[in-house]
């Protein structure tokens, strides 16, 4: 839905102050005109000279959307910028529709877009003409980790027991997780790889999200499942599911389960999210945007957001982030090819 929700009351006042003129720059995002509005030409010192527009390439409510809104809130309420920040949603094509639209803002540093690991895979999967190379990477910001769970009455008490059974008869373990080609399936494929199971023998059943996956685990439809820890937390606390391992590199504070690495399999995966700017912005502008986001990441508002959402602080900016995207692209392409999802 093309809904722009203002981050907060305070921010609304800003927007009201910035008046209609500045507010309408917002429309460049959906007007699809390449000009990028009037605010694009400011020098680095003046940045930002207009309202910051953040695109979430998905429906309201999901991870991209929450990230975008949290950034907007931290930017305004954290006092990083005075010009206001708006969020808008462009769903479709697993995020590639939004990406295609976003790169048309070429040269406008006030336009930002939330991206993440899932988008990297989606670009491959949908044969998108536009890729992340057409954007200017700004910063990686957050990471969420997957949890491996089984129903509470499952015979598997540890990850090792589950993996042994999986190794012995790969098809007998139906793994539940998120959509095809997403983080969850990549994790399960890497686990299969780690115990020497052919990825092609993997019995992975995709679900459209926690809403579908949770009942499938509770009803015993799937033997085991991998998905975001936050989605299962309540069920784990209530004793309906057993948490076997988490996908982070280091143990997560307050979570009573080993990492997959500690459980004996050299696999870790982070569902990261970050920001990119449109192509063809100057180096100065790029530095200014990075500076703004770094400042945002240091605000108390942002740190509180990380804590309340259980997001790991995963900050990485500029060139290092560009390299990270490239390496992610390589490993994800490899895994998706093994899975037969892309050719």
């Amino acid at each position, binding site marked *: 839905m*093309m809904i722009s929700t203002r981050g907060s009351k305070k921010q609304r006042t800003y927007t009201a102050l910035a008046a209609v003129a500045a507010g*309408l720059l917002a*429309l460049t995002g959906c*007007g699809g005109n390449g000009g990028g509005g009037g605010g694009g030409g400011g020098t680095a010192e003046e940045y930002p000279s207009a309202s910051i527009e953040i695109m979430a390439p998905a429906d309201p409510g999901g991870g991209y959307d929450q990230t975008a809104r949290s950034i907007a809130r931290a930017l305004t309420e954290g006092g990083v910028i005075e010009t206001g920040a708006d969020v*808008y949603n462009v769903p479709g094509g697993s995020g590639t529709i939004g990406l295609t639209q976003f790169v048309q803002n070429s040269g406008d540093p006030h336009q930002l877009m939330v991206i993440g690991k899932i988008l990297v895979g989606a670009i491959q999967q949908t044969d998108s003409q536009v890729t992340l190379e057409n954007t200017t990477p700004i910063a990686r910001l957050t990471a969420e980790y997957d949890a491996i769970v089984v129903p509470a009455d499952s015979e598997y008490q540890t990850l090792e027991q589950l993996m042994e059974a999986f190794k012995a008869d790969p098809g007998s373990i139906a793994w539940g997780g998120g959509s095809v080609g997403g983080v969850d399936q990549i994790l399960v494929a890497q686990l299969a790889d780690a115990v020497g199971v052919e990825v092609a023998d993997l019995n992975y059943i995709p679900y459209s999200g926690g809403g579908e996956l949770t009942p499938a685990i509770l009803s015993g439809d799937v033997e085991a499942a991998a998905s975001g820890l936050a989605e299962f937390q309540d069920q784990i606390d209530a004793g309906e599911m057993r948490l076997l391992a988490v996908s982070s590199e280091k143990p997560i504070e307050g979570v009573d389960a080993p990492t997959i690495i500690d459980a004996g399999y050299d696999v870790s995966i982070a569902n990261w999210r970050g920001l990119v700017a449109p192509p063809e912005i100057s180096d100065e502008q790029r530095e200014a945007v990075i500076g703004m986001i770094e400042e945002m990441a240091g605000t108390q508002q942002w740190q509180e957001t990380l804590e309340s959402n259980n997001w790991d602080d995963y900050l990485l900016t500029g060139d290092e982030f560009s390299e990270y995207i490239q390496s992610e692209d390589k490993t994800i392409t490899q895994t998706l090819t093994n899975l037969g999802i892309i050719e």
Partner: protein
Amino acid sequence: MTSGRPEAAPHQRGGKSGIRIAAVVLLLGAAIILYDAISISERGGLAPGEPGFFPMAVGVGLVVVSLLFLLRTTLMQDKALFVYAAEEQSETHWNTVWLVIAALVAYAFVLQPVGYIVSTSLFFVGIAWVAGSRRWIRDIIVAVLFSAAIYFGFTELLGVRLPAGILQGVL
């Protein structure tokens, strides 16, 4: 069925040809869908658990029911349907239909570049004219107020983005 009976009213023939065209168009569409379903099956497999199974079932089903429908309009004529269609068609002002369709397509394409208020006002007045309204002043006032109200209501109150288009900077 009895296809040899002579036709009564001339307008009934109009109902016949229109519905036959519809049946042929339907069958062509069904054939394209079946063709695409075949290529999906080639890529994804045709077993019940594979991605090609349902598309194939739907493609074949659609071709079969389209053929049956064509049959009902030619060899085994459905008289009641002909009477119904003839009556409907005689009450349809085809020029209006084509004009409205053209206006809709034009509206979709100018919506973003020209902007919501202007394109909607033009569309509104245009359709009202096509529909036979000749009260220009009323229509223009209603059109402009209506589209401006929607624009501001949606962008300001509901937070939905609508394109400003050529009025960008003025609004």
